[in-house]
């Protein structure tokens, strides 16, 4: 055990102390947060930074000379009189207006030809905001013409969302499918990436030891199995460290953003962020999303994530280690990687399906089959999975991981000391069935 812990220590420290580790660990969250910040900046800035001075020639009398103002609308609206479209078109810029809105007189039944004059193309937000105002005004006029009280109409209009109550025996829980699906997808993608990135890292480490011939020196001090397991655990610990740092750094960055730019976060749920892009984000939806997250079995999700991360990583790392031990060149590795990559990719595909249809046969199968279960189960677990399925999947994963480690150790033990020869599947099979 002492030797394994020494090997783990070396594998861990030699990677964590490397400059590239520091760079990727710190740069990745910075890039993610910067990306996030840019999106928010574009999103919020697009609405608030451009304020227009709008001149309105309302020949139809649509607004009755009065514009209802939204609280977040900083544009100014001025109604002009005694002008025509053609005469004012040339003047509005000199009189200090950015936009000139012309509403010709029109018949109730015919859609009017409303024109917005500007020096350059008007942005989407401003255009849709104006359209909304005009639509409201026209609707109001038509309601009055039809002798319907606008107040009554507002009460009649329907805008509903279905609420999903899940009766899982432990009292009623609200579930929001959209939220569950996003969280599932995130969890599945994360596990997929972890398996791929850290699995490859294990393979490269083994190849390095083999081609540098250090393996022979080490196995004259420790058992090959100790070397393999030490490497797998050491690199797994590197992965966990990296994730822990990412979570902390991203948490700190988000906290500091909300501290320094509180306005950004206050405006986020603001209904004035209307426009095509913001359809989903209104105060009601935000509350719904938060409620949706709260309704999820968070402890179970977190537990599953950690379990499937560890189980899946150990399983795949053993396979990657076995591959690394039998090849001496990247090119050879690519060929052998194919059968290992296939279940990973398959798992990813099934997982994306499972996030939409968690109880389909293929999703259930994928979440049981140990080579795909770490990825697929993350896609299902947010929706609530029967306990027996979860237990069976976990048990299968553990058993398979033990079995694969045993197999990998046998291949590894022989492969790591074999140089310059291409190993065939047949030979590997012989190493497996050989006793001792």
């Amino acid at each position: 055990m002492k030797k394994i812990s020494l090997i783990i220590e070396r594998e861990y420290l030699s990677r964590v102390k490397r400059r590239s580790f520091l760079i990727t660990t710190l740069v990745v969250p910075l890039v993610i947060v910067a990306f996030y910040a840019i999106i928010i900046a574009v999103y919020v800035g697009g609405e608030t930074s451009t304020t227009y001075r709008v001149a309105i020639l309302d020949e139809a009398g649509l607004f009755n000379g009065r514009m209802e103002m939204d609280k977040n609308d900083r544009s100014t609206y001025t109604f002009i009189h005694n002008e025509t479209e053609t005469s004012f078109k040339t003047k509005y810029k000199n009189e200090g207006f950015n936009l000139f809105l012309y509403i010709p007189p029109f018949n109730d039944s015919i859609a009017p030809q409303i024109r917005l004059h500007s020096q350059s193309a008007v942005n989407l937000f401003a255009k849709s905001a104006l359209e909304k105002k005009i639509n409201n005004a026209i609707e109001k006029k038509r309601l009055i013409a039809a002798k319907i009280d606008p107040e009554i109409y507002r009460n009649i209009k329907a805008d509903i969302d279905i609420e999903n109550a899940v009766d899982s025996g432990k009292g009623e829980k609200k579930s929001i499918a959209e939220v569950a699906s996003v969280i599932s997808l995130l969890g599945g993608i994360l596990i997929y990436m972890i398996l791929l990135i850290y699995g490859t890292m294990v393979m490269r480490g083994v190849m390095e030891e083999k081609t540098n011939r250090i393996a022979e020196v080490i196995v004259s001090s420790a058992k090959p199995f100790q070397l393999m397991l030490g490497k797998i655990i050491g690199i797994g610990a590197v992965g966990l460290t990296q994730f822990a740092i990412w979570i902390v750094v991203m948490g700190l960055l988000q906290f500091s953003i909300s501290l320094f730019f509180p306005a950004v976060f206050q405006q986020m749920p603001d209904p004035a962020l209307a426009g095509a892009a913001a359809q989903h984000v209104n105060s009601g939806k935000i509350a719904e999303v938060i409620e949706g997250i709260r309704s999820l079995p968070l402890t179970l999700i977190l537990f599953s994530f950690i379990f499937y991360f560890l189980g899946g990583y150990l399983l795949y790392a053993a396979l990657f280690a076995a591959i690394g031990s039998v090849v001496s060149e990247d090119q050879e590795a690519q060929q052998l990687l194919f059968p290992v990559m296939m279940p990973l990719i398959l798992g990813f595909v099934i997982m994306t399906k499972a996030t939409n249809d968690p109880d389909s046969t293929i999703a259930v199968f994928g979440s049981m089959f140990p080579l795909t279960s770490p990825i697929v189960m993350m896609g299902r677990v947010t929706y609530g999975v029967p306990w027996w399925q979860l237990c069976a999947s976990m048990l299968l994963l553990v058993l398979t991981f033990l079995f694969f480690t045993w197999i990998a150790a046998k291949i590894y033990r022989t492969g790591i000391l074999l140089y310059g020869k291409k190993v065939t599947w047949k030979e590997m099979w012989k190493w497996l069935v050989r006793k001792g």
Partner: protein
Amino acid sequence: MPQNILEVDHLKKHFATQKAVDDVSFNIEQGAIFGMLGPNGAGKTTLLRMITGIFFPDSGSIIFEGKKFDPVNDIIRIGYMPEERGLYKKMKIGEQALYLARLKGLGKTEALEKIKYWFRRLEMESWWNKKVQDLSKGMSQKLQFVTTVLHEPHLIILDEPFSGLDPLNANLIKDEIFRLAKNGSTIIFSTHRMEQVEEICNHIVLINKGNKILDGTVKNIKQEFKENLFHIGFENRPDSLENNSIFEVTGEMRQGWVLKIQTGYKPHDVLQYLLSQHHEIISFNEILPSLNDIFIKLVEDTPLARAFQSGPETL
């Protein structure tokens, strides 16, 4: 009589395509410098890997320090320097030595102390923070040697320890090998360079194609394979020497002749005869066969022998 540190008994290891080691037995005395000779591919490395617990033998037994060899616990008392040197390229020299020493079971402080001692001894102190990838081949060779002997193993196994070393460093390592042996360590020295063994080892085995073909002390083997050849030097070399019942002239040298003494006669019979002929003799010494010659004789008329005849360097 010193005790045997290692007894190898009917050891066999077959791979799918070949018999790498086929029924090899030998004993190594405590404190000996033991030479394991053989051409490349003879099975030396496989044998060493079994002795170091890396491979399990198919059959046969290994007795280490009087008990059955236990790969898990006994390898701490063995130091093995494989033919293919292996070090972590990106690791610092000092950390690397420390890691390997601790894998051999040394405590941290003890290991540090020993590393400092050896680094001072071999003038490597300034290397501590260098990385292996910045070292020359000879330098990493020295580092590998240090990491092999650092934990004061009872049995030190060196596979081609001089390859890649310049004469100066080779001598440095050679002196260290002698010193370690004097202090009680037993050394197995594996090589295909026969001439190196003669000056270092006291006991050798010769391995070819997985079989042991020779076993004994260097002196005894040479005696066994000697052909009663003598070199005799004259103040004034006679133009010719007659063959007679005592000796036969087999070769010519600048200062004299090479003689083969006929069976039944002793060297002093030759001297007596030549002195009676009033020759002025300035030197007379026995020509013992080199291990290289012996090896060639043993594997005579095989392609391998012909390769060795043109010099082991070409192998």
